[in-house]
């Protein structure tokens, strides 16, 4: 009896492992667009004391202007307080930056659903028989200021009367 229980237990563990592995394989993502030399964050933060008080940062990260429900939120709602190389979900789960889509998906559920189906965002590479890469939310949206910025358009087509350089 004990042996059977042990077997069932082992099977459960194996299934659990393969499920979590599948989750990572299912969405192969591009690397997060860190500013140069900023990651790993622990390079600077390792020896620093954690200050959980919401405040304006004056010495470092001054280029970050939070424009993403900034009244309700600040750094440590998404960045893990003691392990700065990781992000944290609302339920306390600690995740890597490569899984940041799960963090965004907590609020943007319908977009997250479309992203997983490949309708929101962009996928590049092979849709069949090769490597397919998913763009992370943060490859297109700055997480601190997510609204998509206007672009300069490419030039309009040449009018027919100017086609031959006359």
């Amino acid at each position, binding site marked *: 009896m004990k042996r059977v229980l042990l077997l069932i237990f082992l099977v459960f563990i194996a299934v659990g492992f393969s499920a979590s592995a599948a989750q990572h394989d299912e969405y192969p993502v591009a690397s997060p667009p860190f500013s140069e030399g900023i990651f790993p964050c622990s390079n600077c933060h390792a020896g620093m004391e954690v200050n959980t008080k919401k405040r304006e940062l004056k010495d470092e990260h001054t280029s970050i202007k939070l424009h993403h429900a900034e009244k309700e939120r600040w750094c440590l709602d998404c960045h893990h307080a003691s392990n700065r190389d990781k992000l944290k979900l609302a339920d306390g789960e600690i995740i890597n930056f490569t899984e940041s889509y799960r963090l965004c998906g907590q609020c943007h559920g319908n977009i997250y659903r479309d992203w997983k189906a490949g309708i929101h965002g962009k996928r590049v590479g*092979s*849709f069949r028989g090769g490597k397919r890469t998913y763009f992370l939310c943060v490859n297109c949206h700055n997480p601190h200021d997510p609204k998509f910025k*206007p*672009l300069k358009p490419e030039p309009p*087509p040449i*009018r027919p009367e100017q086609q031959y350089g006359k």
Partner: protein
Amino acid sequence: MENRHSRRDFIKLMSMGALAGLSLGSLSCTKAGREEFLQKHFHEMTETEKKQVIRRLEEKYLKKYGKQVQISTQPAEAGTLWGYGLDLSRCIGCRRCVYACVKENNQSRIHPQLQWIRVIRLKKGSLINLENAEHYYNPETVPEPGFMYMPVQCQQCENPPCVRVCPVNATWKDPDGIVVVDYNWCIGCRYCMAACPYKGRVFNWAEPNLPAGELNTEVHYLGNRPRMKNVVEKCTFCIQRVRQGRYPACVEVCPTGTRKFGNLLDPNSEIRYLIENKRVFRLKEDFNTDPKFYYFFSA
């Protein structure tokens, strides 16, 4: 009356015929020229004959551009029918797709400038009033308030009017739904351009101007191989890419992820998901062209 058709007329006629024959002869006096002139229709060629044609063309391109070009004749795969999705609530009209397409598909760059994608600007609230469409818009930045943008390219109709009017069968719909052109068979009559309700086809009025340095050497015989003067060309959903399972160039370049692509016969494809879950429409559906290009609204 019989005297009107005199000996003199006969001689005149004969000499004109001989002149025409001579000029034809001079066109095809080289071996390659003769082979090109006598080339069969793509559907009637055997595999060996196709290989000969490919070799001849590769030599021709090597001479002209100084680059070894790989011409594929990869046929359609069973169980595939390509479909395209374009999210009108995301397109910002930046024209990145237009120029990525030109680069990928070896279009003539300038004088003449040929493009397979035309991005039209529409006033918000008057969708889809194509009478008020503008495709020469050129503001500092896009999107502009009060407007929306709608890229139009070949819609790969299931019932393509362009194919029906071609007098020589130089254009046809392949089994995977892509409407293709054999540039070596096209006679340049442009009936297909007149028949297409989407302005999906463009014509090489002059010798294409493609700098050798910008030549994309991975080409398909029925797609992006370099063209010549006096032939019609069009979007093929990047036939050279999609038959290998790769996304079209316009899908990959779009900065807003507006463009979606997939196999309509695969229930798990992105295109099937969006058709089943989003509000979709097809352009000028009332013409019974049955396009495989789905415009949709994600938001």
